C-alpha cells in the first residue's frame, strides 16, 4: 500500500517537472516582463541572452560536426577537396571514421608472416635460425575461440598492412612513420619468437621477415582442394634487434 502511494506521488512529480520544463518559455517571459524590478529584470535578460546564445552555439556546433563528418566519409567531391584541411583538422584524431571492414572488397588473400633470427656465434660467424611462422600463432589463437583477442586478429595483420602502406613495394623507410612501423614490426616479431621458441635464453641480434601471400581460391574452382600457389613471396632485409625494455 505504502509503495503504491509512493509510486503515484512520483508520477505527479515527474509530470510537474516535465511540464515545468516544456512550458518554461512562455511563463518566464511574462514573469520577466511584468513583475520584476530594475536590476532583476536586467539579470533575467542577461541570463536569457546567455542561454539563447549557448543554445544557438550548441546547435551550430552540432550541425558543423555532422556536416564535417559527412564530408569526411563521403567520396571525394569538390567541397571535400577544397576544405580537406579543415575537415581533417576537425575529424582527426578523435572522430576518425573507419568503416571499411571488408570494403570495397574483402581481402582475398591470407598472409603468412615468417621470421628467422641470426646471432653472432662463438667464432664470430652468424648462426641463422630456421623460419618461424608468426601467423600460425594467430590462426591457432583464433581457431575454436568464440572471442578472439585483438592480439591475434589485429596486431600482426594491421602492423603488416600499415607497413605496406608506409613502405610500398620496397623496403627502405623513407618517412618518419615508415621508420616507426618498421620498429613496431621488428618488436612484434622479436617478442613472438622469444615467447614461442625454446631458445629464448639468449638475445636476438638480427631478425628477418618473409611474407608469403596466399590467394583464396575463387568460388566454384576446384582449386580449393590443392594448396594455393603464393602470389607473392616477399623477403625483407635483415633488421637489427634492440630490446625495448621488456
Amino acid at each position, binding site marked *: 500500500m505504502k509503495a503504491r502511494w509512493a509510486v503515484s506521488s512520483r508520477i505527479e512529480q515527474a509530470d510537474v517537472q*516535465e511540464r515545468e520544463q516544456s512550458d518554461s518559455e512562455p511563463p518566464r517571459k511574462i514573469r520577466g516582463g511584468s513583475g520584476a524590478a530594475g536590476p532583476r529584470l536586467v539579470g533575467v535578460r542577461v541570463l536569457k541572452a546567455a542561454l539563447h546564445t549557448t543554445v544557438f552555439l550548441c546547435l551550430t556546433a552540432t550541425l558543423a560536426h555532422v556536416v564535417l563528418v*559527412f564530408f569526411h566519409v563521403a567520396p571525394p567531391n569538390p567541397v571535400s577537396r577544397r576544405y580537406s584541411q579543415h575537415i581533417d583538422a576537425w575529424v582527426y584524431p578523435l572522430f576518425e571514421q573507419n568503416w*571499411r571492414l*571488408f570494403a570495397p*572488397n574483402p581481402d582475398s588473400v591470407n598472409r603468412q608472416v615468417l621470421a628467422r633470427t641470426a646471432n653472432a656465434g662463438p667464432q664470430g660467424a652468424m648462426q641463422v635460425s630456421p623460419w618461424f611462422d608468426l601467423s600460425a600463432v594467430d590462426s591457432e589463437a583464433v*581457431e575454436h575461440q*568464440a572471442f578472439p*583477442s585483438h592480439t591475434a586478429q589485429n596486431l600482426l595483420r594491421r602492423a603488416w598492412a600499415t607497413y605496406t602502406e608506409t613502405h610500398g613495394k620496397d623496403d627502405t623507410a623513407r618517412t618518419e612513420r615508415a621508420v616507426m612501423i618498421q620498429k613496431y614490426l621488428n618488436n612484434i616479431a622479436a*617478442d613472438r619468437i622469444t615467447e614461442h621458441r625454446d631458445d629464448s635464453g639468449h638475445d636476438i641480434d638480427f631478425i628477418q621477415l618473409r611474407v608469403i601471400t596466399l590467394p583464396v581460391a575463387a*568460388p566454384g574452382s576446384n582449386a580449393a582442394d590443392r594448396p594455393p600457389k603464393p602470389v607473392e613471396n616477399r623477403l625483407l632485409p635483415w633488421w637489427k634487434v634492440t630490446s625495448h625494455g621488456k
Partner: protein
Amino acid sequence: MGSEQLRKPPAAAIKLVTGRPVSLYATSVLRIGYGLLYLVFLLREFPHRHEIWGPGSPWTPTLAAQLFDQTGWYSFLLLSDSRAYFELCYGVALMTSTLFMLGWRTRATSIAFAVVVTSFHARSIFMTDGGDNLVLLMSLYLVLTACGRRWSLDARRERRTADRTAGAATRSKSLSPTMRQLRDARVTLTTVVHNCGVFIIAAQVCFLYGSAGLYKVQGSYWADGTALHYVLHLELFQPWPELSHLLDQYPLAIAAIGYLTVLTQVAFPFVLFGRLKYPVLVLLLGMHAGIAVLLGLPVFSGAMIIADAVFLPDRFYSSLPRLGRRTARRLGVRLPRPRGEAGGGAVPPQARPETLGSNLR
C-alpha cells in the same frame, strides 16, 4: 530564439530541441551497452593487457609518444612507463566502465569513461578495428547526453530522495526567482545538449552504414556476390572453420546474404523515418549476430548492435518490463514482485513519449 521572426515558423522545431530530452531510454541503453562491452573487452584482454596497452608492448611508449606528437592524440597511459602505474590505469579503466554501466554520478563518470576509452584506444591505435572506433565515438558522444536518467543508480537515488522528502515540488516553489531562473536555464541547456548528442549519435550511425554500404558497392566481389566466400576463407576471421566451410557450400545463399547486406546498409539512413526501420533493424541484428559468431568479432558486432538500439523509441523500452512480466506470468514463472520503483519507473514515460515521442522520431 526569443525574437519574433524566429518564434513563429520554427517554433515546433525549437520546442523539439529545447522542450524535452528525447530518447532517454535509448541513451541509457547505449550507456549500459557500451559500459558493459568495454568492461568485457578489458577483461577478455586481461592476459594480453601488457602486449596491447602496457609499457612492454611492441608499440613502445616511445613510438606511441612519437605518433602523438604527429597526430595530436593524448593518452594518460603514457604518463609513466612503470608497470605498477599501468596496472593502476587498467584497474581504473575497469572501475570506470563498471560505474558508467551502472549509471553512478553519470555525467562525471561519462567524462571519465570517454577519457579512459580515448586513452586506451590511442595507446593501441594499430591494434584497433571498426568496433573500437565506434566505441570511441560513442563514448565521446554519450558525454553530451543525459544517459543516466533511466535504469541507473542515479535514477534510483533520485527516486529515493524524492520518496523521502516527498516534496521536491514544494521545495522548488520556495526557491528565489533568480535561482528558479538559473535552474530553468540549466534544465533547458542540458536538454538541448542532450538532444544534440542524440542527433549526432543517430547521424553517426547513418554515416557508418551509409558509407560502409557505399564503399562495398564499389567492390567487384560484392557486385558479383562472392564477397562472403572470400571473407569466410580468411584465417584470422575463421574461429569455426567447419562452419565457414559448410556455409561456403551454398554459393546462392552467400550471394543473397551479400546483396542483402549491401542493400540494408545503403538503405539504412532512408528507412529510419518510417515503420520499415523495424524489419531493417532486425535484419541488421541478425547480420551482426552472424558476424559475431562466424567471423569471431563479438566486440565489433556488439558495438554495432548497441548503436542500432538508439533508433528504438522510448515507448518500446518502457514497455519492456511490463512485457517481461506478462511473458513470465504466461509461462508460469513466478517472479519476485516488482519493487515499487521498478513498476513505477515505467509508468510516467508511458504517457508522454507516446504522444510526443512518436511524432518526434
